[in-house]
């Protein structure tokens, strides 16, 4: 299974030439999509799947560029996006439409009953895993579990409005996903998957 290696990948961005790396894109997505939220670096590392040292390095670079701002609260260093940056509007749009899918879909799916695991697959996942190609035209999401279709249609609609890209959500039961004897599921499992919700998280 190649999940973890995709999740923590820190190479150059295949999603956009305007960001330095996948690590930078992931950090920006976690901070810029909701500029009212302040996050510690360890929380950013946890959400992005980056090693804490890499998250720290990326955050420090972004603070130096005044893209992020920080403040101390006790022993914690809290970070938030700087909405006063002259390029805020352009940057936040680029970040939302390239690295936004993970935080947006993760947050939307976290509120849905019956979701055991969720991944992005298809062209967006391939780019996020560093495979070059044209910009993704849609987002393909696999949900393992037994959520209601109405809830997932709500999620797809909300994600499309936020990310400005078509979102298709496919569900499969845990047993079918574990067996992977369906040619489609076998194909999906053999290609890059980007984790939105892990089974460990839902079990915990």
């Amino acid at each position, binding site marked *: 299974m190649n999940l973890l290696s995709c999740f923590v990948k820190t190479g150059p961005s295949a999603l956009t030439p305007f960001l330095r790396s996948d690590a930078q894109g992931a950090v920006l997505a976690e901070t810029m999509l909701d500029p009212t939220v302040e996050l510690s670096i360890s929380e950013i590392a946890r959400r992005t799947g980056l090693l804490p040292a890499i998250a720290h390095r990326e955050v420090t670079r972004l603070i130096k560029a005044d893209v992020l701002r920080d403040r101390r609260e006790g022993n914690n260093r809290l970070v938030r996006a700087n909405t006063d940056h002259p390029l805020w509007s352009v940057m936040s749009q680029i970040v939302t439409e390239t690295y936004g899918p993970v935080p947006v879909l993760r947050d939307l799916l976290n509120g849905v009953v019956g979701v055991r695991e969720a991944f992005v697959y298809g062209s967006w996942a391939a780019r996020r895993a560093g495979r070059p190609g044209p910009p993704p035209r849609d987002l393909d999401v696999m949900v393992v579990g037994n959520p209601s*279709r109405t809830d997932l*249609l709500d999620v797809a609609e909300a994600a499309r409005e936020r990310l400005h890209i078509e979102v298709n959500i496919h569900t499969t039961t845990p047993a079918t996903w574990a067996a992977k004897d369906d040619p*489609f599921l076998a*194909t999906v499992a053999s290609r890059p998957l980007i984790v939105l919700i892990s089974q460990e998280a839902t079990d915990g």
Partner: protein
Amino acid sequence: MLAVQGLRTKGGDGGHRVLGELMQAQLPDYKQVLREFDWMRQKRNDTEYYDPGRPTATTHDVADGILAAGRIVDLGWTFVEFVTATRR
């Protein structure tokens, strides 16, 4: 639903998508029912034009689709009767 308004979609690529979008735009209060049409359209497309990277319809999708189609047909009849009655 279109014909009773004197409308029709053009044939060819995207006709079904436009039909679904138009009806959702015309009846925003019934979006939850009508968006099921788009779900079925996508599922039918992926099933008919097979690609191992796209999911085909499962038996669960088919059972769900029959129920969803029933709701859309019921709404369609109500809509057609309403439009016809307002013309009298």
